[in-house]
């Protein structure tokens, strides 16, 4: 397989992902038994379903609905909520929820990036691996529950205070960073990649020449490290749904959960679109990084030929 094949597949997938995910949900919505409009207006509970279906673009089939929705989403219009906040624009909810999730994910990445860097530099003793593994066994829901209990006990009765919100974000981020083996994976995964690379002959020769392991191995392990980091960000995003609901952070995960419980396809479509767009962005970053690293590694070093001739 040519070296550019994998990044190219990732580039294509990154572009297609935000388009395909809403298409699949729309297709499944129409494949379900019953009329999609009956979710908004259940038979026997309200009148004028046909008029409602026409107004919401549900009367002309899935393709028409999808094309309308995706073209509007491209301009920032994510349609309207079906049941959760019936009739109100989903965009407003998205605007208020995305920053919370972004902050939570960023805070969760702090222990993960620290663990990765320290493991790459070899500064974390192997003895501590058992600690990471033991902490990593704890599921996010349990740790989030402990955080929620702590916040309730400490600030339960206070209103208009910024401290509980800050505690929710910081402790929620910490939960996401360590629960379900996230930190253990970051430390052990990074160490495993470097240990494997150090066995290579070029690193051994570089060491004999007095060079460092990191400077030599890093360009070659970088694609694997970037891939691992993308996996970890997705893992954190997955856990964010649980942490946001349990701890009470009004983020995108909470919005998706509420939309799911209320069968609000308008909200679910928008939330999954946001998640898939972010996931596509991560894929794009990975593909571009892989291409950049591959070009760097393949670049012929200057002066080698002259040295060989001499």
């Amino acid at each position, binding site marked *: *397989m040519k070296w550019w094949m994998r990044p190219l*597949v*990732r580039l294509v*997938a990154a572009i297609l*992902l935000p388009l395909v*995910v809403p298409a699949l*949900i729309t297709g*499944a*919505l129409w494949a*379900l*038994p019953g009329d999609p409009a009956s979710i908004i207006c259940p038979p026997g509970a309200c009148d004028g379903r046909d008029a409602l279906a026409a107004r919401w673009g549900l009367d002309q089939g899935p393709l028409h609905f999808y094309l309308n929705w995706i073209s509007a989403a491209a301009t920032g219009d994510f349609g309207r909520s079906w049941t959760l906040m019936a009739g109100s624009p989903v965009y407003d909810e998205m605007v208020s929820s995305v920053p919370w999730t972004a902050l939570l994910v960023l805070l969760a990445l702090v222990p993960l990036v620290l663990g990765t860097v320290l493991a790459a530099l070899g500064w974390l003793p192997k003895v501590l691996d058992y600690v990471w593994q033991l902490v990593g*066994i704890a*599921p*996010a*829901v*349990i740790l989030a*529950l402990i955080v*929620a*209990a702590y916040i*309730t*006990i400490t600030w339960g009765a206070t209103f208009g205070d910024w401290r509980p919100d800050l505690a929710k974000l910081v402790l929620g981020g910490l939960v996401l960073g360590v629960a*379900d083996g996230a930190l253990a994976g970051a430390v052990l995964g990074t160490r495993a990649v470097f240990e494997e690379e150090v066995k290579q002959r070029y690193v051994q020769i570089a060491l004999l020449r007095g060079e460092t392991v990191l400077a030599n191995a890093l360009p070659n392990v970088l694609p694997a490290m970037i891939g691992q980091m993308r*996996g970890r960000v*997705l*893992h954190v*995003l*997955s*856990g*964010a*749904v*649980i942490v946001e*609901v*349990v701890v009470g952070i009004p983020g995108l*995960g909470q919005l*998706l*959960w*509420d*939309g*799911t*419980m209320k*069968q609000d*396809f308008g909200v*679910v479509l928008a*939330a*999954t679109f946001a*998640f*898939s767009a972010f*996931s*596509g962005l991560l*894929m794009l970053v990975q593909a571009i990084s892989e291409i950049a690293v591959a070009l760097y590694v393949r670049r012929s070093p200057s002066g080698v030929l002259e040295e060989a001739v001499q």
Partner: protein
Amino acid sequence: MSTQRFRALWLAVGCALLGALICAGMLAPEFVDPPNLDHVSKDEYGSTVGGLGFFVVEGAPLGTNEYGVPLHQLALQGASIVAFPAALAGLLVMAFATFAGLVRCADVAWLDTALQAFGEITGALPRMVVVLVVALLLPYDWKYLLPIALVWAVLASPAAMDEAAASAGRLGGARFVEALRAHGFSAIRIYLYHVVWMNLRPVIVRQGAEVMMQVVFLEIALSYLALASNAPSFTHAENLNSWAELLYLGYSWILDRHLGHAVFLSFALIAVTALMAQSFRLAARAR
């Protein structure tokens, strides 16, 4: 203790815990006992302040909730919800990992590439988001843990397949198979014994056990979120109670309800599930 005995011990522990989980699921009552206010904890004014602790009242060895319902019945029902779907999800991931490892050894390039593409696609979205969308789209009659567990297993399989394929690759892939074939071994012996049993077993068993544990935790998380939202869970029927119910009861403990034993029980059940997965992992460790 020799390594072999050590592994045998962990295998026995893992099997015993898995057996206990399945037996508990089979022994679970269809409906829990009706509320019994004689079996609750009351303050000096006669108001209910929680449940009774361990072995306080006959017929409820693990205590009661604040309505006097025995907690062991909730624990048994929780086991019945997770036992079969979790085991099946674990087996599915093991099958995927085995397949990927064998494909790498068989040197079928197009299938190997197809499996990598499958991994890229299924691993592209956060798992919980996919699970929620699937839960939303499931018809009402299918709102049980099994379809969600299988979806989770499919989403978790790329990591398992990658690791199994990498292990097979480190063996030498097709060259390893050729070398054994030169010794006159049959294809079944080479693939099933030398490749899968002798070399891929640690990866396959660990990944299967981890997914089994993850499905149990996923059920607890989804049911807890549903309880917190005051909505029915999409992982089980309404007559059943998840282990999340015990966690939820335990959360009331911080409000000075007498339900500390529910916290202890729910944490113990989660610890036992984790121990089961770790036991299988240690039992299958490479020599």
